[in-house]
């Protein structure tokens, strides 16, 4: 039958390549999420959250341990710079990354997950001196890369400040032991009570192909003030270390802690738990200037610890402590006022910072040491080839997570150095900023917070203060991730393209732009919730 009207072939517009209209070209990009950028251990947080939110918990854990072998430990003691950087704060509150990490770490211990098989044996031997977070992290990463690792630790047990600095109520020892055991089971040789006193000897013996130094900072900084013979002045490092002995330190009923850092909070809260009735922190500046993290100060106050601001210790004689009152000057610095006050106390614990014991380096010439810290280059190598260092003994932020990051970085440098290869330069993507998000698409969802045990329980026992999230809470928390800067296949771009110029490649494969037809309107980029589409000018 002859058509009664003009008839056109279906879809003949495809002859018309409208892509030639384009002045701007969209493309899918990978931007660096702020959490990943902030993580001192270099975790790919967004990636493991995305696995967790799909209930792929074991895969999520495996993604964490590519960078950090201690998810259960760091899920407790890390000060989570990731959460401080999280873009979700511009919607309601940051994703509780640390609590999800702890959930995964605890589940790994419960379900006995083991690390992936290490790389083929390299035949190289590496010595790690000091079994703190940096040393153990280096040992783990070196083992993962196929090297034979020996760790020598001067103290009775491995863990460094994780064991001898962080109280049990923040890090239960069974958690610490379980994550260290996993590293030992991985083939790392751990020798405790083996203090290395002379690095020169070790290097000259040629028993090892490389050395990683991570002796930490275990010597307390002290201060001078007049005391009488029976005045008890202790240091926080020793008190916290002695907590690991069967015989606990005896501090008395009234304890004064001098200092304003996290160690001061730790030792004050420990004193309370040891039975002290009155624990007072004495600090020469104001709360705003306190180096301790705000939540630790809050938790200490909740437990009945008193803090005296703007005072210094003048003298401590016959249980009588004389404090000098300070006042802030115009520039905000504390200055003595000449006025004093007194209080009674059974002992003073100094928490004024720590130094490294670098005695083992004395007979090893040529290392650069400044302000009591060892200098390293960008590869974490000291000025002596093959000797690397990290953790609290090098000039850097002193946190456990930083140590873990140092250990990883040093391990990769040592690996490259041993194999005589250049380390590939890692490409750093531009940051996924909050301004790039299309926040319309994200509903407000409140954070699943970890609960604290009650105060009475806290002040009488060393039980862990903070409880973990349930599986349901951890799942919901991981699902709060915005996926900043990286596609999570929401189909917005595919759905909103007026020119049908985006091809969906199937689950997990993402999308492809058909530049034959894309007119460059930019709707895909504007409506991308996570800001992973870039518009760049065409060459015209």
């Amino acid at each position, binding site marked *: 039958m002859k058509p009664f009207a003009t008839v056109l072939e279906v*879809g003949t517009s495809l002859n018309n390549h409208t892509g030639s209209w384009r002045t701007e070209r969209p493309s899918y990009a990978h931007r660096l999420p702020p959490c990943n950028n902030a993580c001192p251990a270099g975790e790919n947080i967004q990636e493991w959250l995305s696995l967790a*939110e799909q209930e792929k918990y074991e895969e999520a854990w495996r993604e964490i341990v590519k960078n950090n072998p201690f998810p259960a430990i760091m899920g407790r003691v890390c000060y989570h710079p990731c959460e401080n950087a999280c873009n979700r704060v511009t919607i309601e509150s940051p994703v509780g990354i640390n609590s999800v990490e702890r959930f995964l770490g605890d589940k790994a211990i419960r379900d006995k997950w083991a690390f992936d098989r290490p790389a083929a044996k390299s035949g190289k031997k590496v010595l790690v001196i000091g079994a703190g977070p940096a040393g153990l992290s280096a040992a783990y990463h070196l083992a993962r890369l196929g090297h034979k690792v020996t760790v020598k630790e001067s103290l009775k047990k491995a863990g460094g400040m994780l064991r001898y600095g962080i109280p049990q109520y923040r890090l239960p020892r069974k958690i610490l032991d379980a994550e260290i055991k996993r590293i030992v089971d991985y083939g790392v040789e751990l020798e405790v009570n083996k203090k290395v006193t002379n690095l020169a000897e070790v290097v000259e013996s040629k028993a090892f192909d490389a050395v990683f130094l991570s002796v930490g900072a275990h010597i307390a900084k002290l201060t001078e003030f007049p005391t009488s013979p029976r005045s008890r002045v202790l240091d926080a490092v020793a008190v916290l270390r002695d907590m690991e002995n069967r015989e606990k330190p005896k501090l008395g009923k009234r304890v004064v802690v001098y200092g304003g850092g996290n160690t001061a909070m730790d030792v004050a809260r420990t004193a309370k738990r040891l039975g002290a009735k009155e624990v007072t922190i004495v600090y020469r500046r104001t709360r705003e200037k306190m180096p301790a993290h705000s939540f630790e100060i809050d938790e200490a106050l909740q437990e009945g610890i008193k803090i005296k601001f703007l005072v210094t210790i003048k003298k401590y004689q016959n249980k009588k402590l004389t404090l000098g009152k300070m006042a802030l000057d115009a520039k905000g610095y504390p200055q003595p006022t000449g006025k004093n006050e007194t209080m009674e106390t059974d002992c003073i614990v100094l928490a004024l910072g720590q130094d490294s014991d670098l005695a083992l380096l004395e007979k090893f010439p040529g290392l650069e040491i400044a302000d009591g810290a060892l200098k390293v280059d960008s590869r974490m190598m000291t000025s002596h080839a093959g000797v690397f260092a990290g953790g609290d003994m090098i000039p850097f932020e002193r946190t456990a997570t930083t140590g873990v990051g140092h250990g990883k970085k040093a391990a990769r440098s040592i690996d490259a150095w041993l194999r005589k290869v250049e380390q590939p330069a890692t490409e750093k993507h531009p940051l996924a900023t909050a301004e790039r998000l299309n926040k319309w698409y994200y509903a407000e969802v409140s954070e699943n917070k970890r609960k604290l045990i009650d105060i009475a329980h806290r002040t009488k026992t060393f039980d862990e203060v903070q409880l973990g999230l349930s599986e*349901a809470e951890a799942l919901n928390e991981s699902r709060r991730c915005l996926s900043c800067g990286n596609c999570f296949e929401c189909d917005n771009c*595919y759905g*909103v393209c007026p020119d049908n110029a985006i091809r969906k490649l199937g*689950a997990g494969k993402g999308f492809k732009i058909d530049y034959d037809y894309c007119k460059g309107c*930019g709707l895909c980029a504007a409506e991308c919730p996570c800001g992973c589409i870039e518009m760049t000018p065409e060459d015209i």
Partner: protein
Amino acid sequence: MKNTQANPKGIYTISNRLGDQANRAVQASEDRPNSLTSGHRACQGCGEALGARIVVDAALRAAKGQIIVVNATGCLEVFSTPYPETAWQTAWVHSLFGNAPAVATGVAAAMEVKGRGNVRVLAQGGDGSTTDIGFGCLSGMFERNDDVLYVCYDNQAYMNTGVQRSSATPPTARTATTPPVGSEPGNVFGTGKNVPLIAMAHQIPYVATATVADVQDLEAKVFKAMSMRGARYLHVLVPCPLGWGSPPRETINLARLAVQCGLFPLFEAENGTVTRATKIRQPVPVENYLKPQRRFAHLFKGGKPVDDRLARMQEMADANISRFNLLGHEETCK
């Protein structure tokens, strides 16, 4: 432990990898019909091209591919079917500017006579053919309750002939025929017609409004309309970068702002009664919607309103908000 919510992430995107894959939006599926395919000549960021694909794809899915589309003259017809090409990948017929509803009535009657009641008829046009030129035919189609879904893609003026005013042009908007000069610059207050409300007055089975800013909502309304027989009317706001004087990338944002400020209420009505109105999720003043559009530029000088016309636009929005009860909590999170 499986979280079976449609949106377990608390997210309003078209879909997400955690959602129920079987019930995802048509526009999210790899095998969507793409009834309006690539190579059409709509401007960059055309809201109408997007709206038409979403609507016809959903209707095709609902009718298992058995759809005849009747198109009125207008942008949609001109950019999709310049002889000898067409971007349509479905049965599609074009006649005149004013008679699409009547042609659709005829097609539906023919299908019924031939015993092919499974073939559904969808008529579509812009606001010019719907609210002005074809309005008589449309009203007739409504009052006879002919079995047609009529979709109006409203971009608030005659865009294809050079942005002339239609009876859907909002007050104060600059068009070629309502220049921003004289005592009442732009389109005057107190004119125009609200076709969704007029459609409701015909007591037809289903009337709904939607925008291209919410794909799931638009698709849901097409599916609902397609589940019914008789005359149904869907009015879709489709921003026009050319006529509105807005960057192409702002098309969806403007549709969203039109809803959030209250000037374009989203509602559904059955047999003449409103059955549901979508709550405003993030209320904004009309200024946020009007300012990015050059057609309203004459309302502002140095960022400040020049006279009380902005306040009068806000009054229109406030009247909608109160009439349709648009503030407060939505019972369910879509």
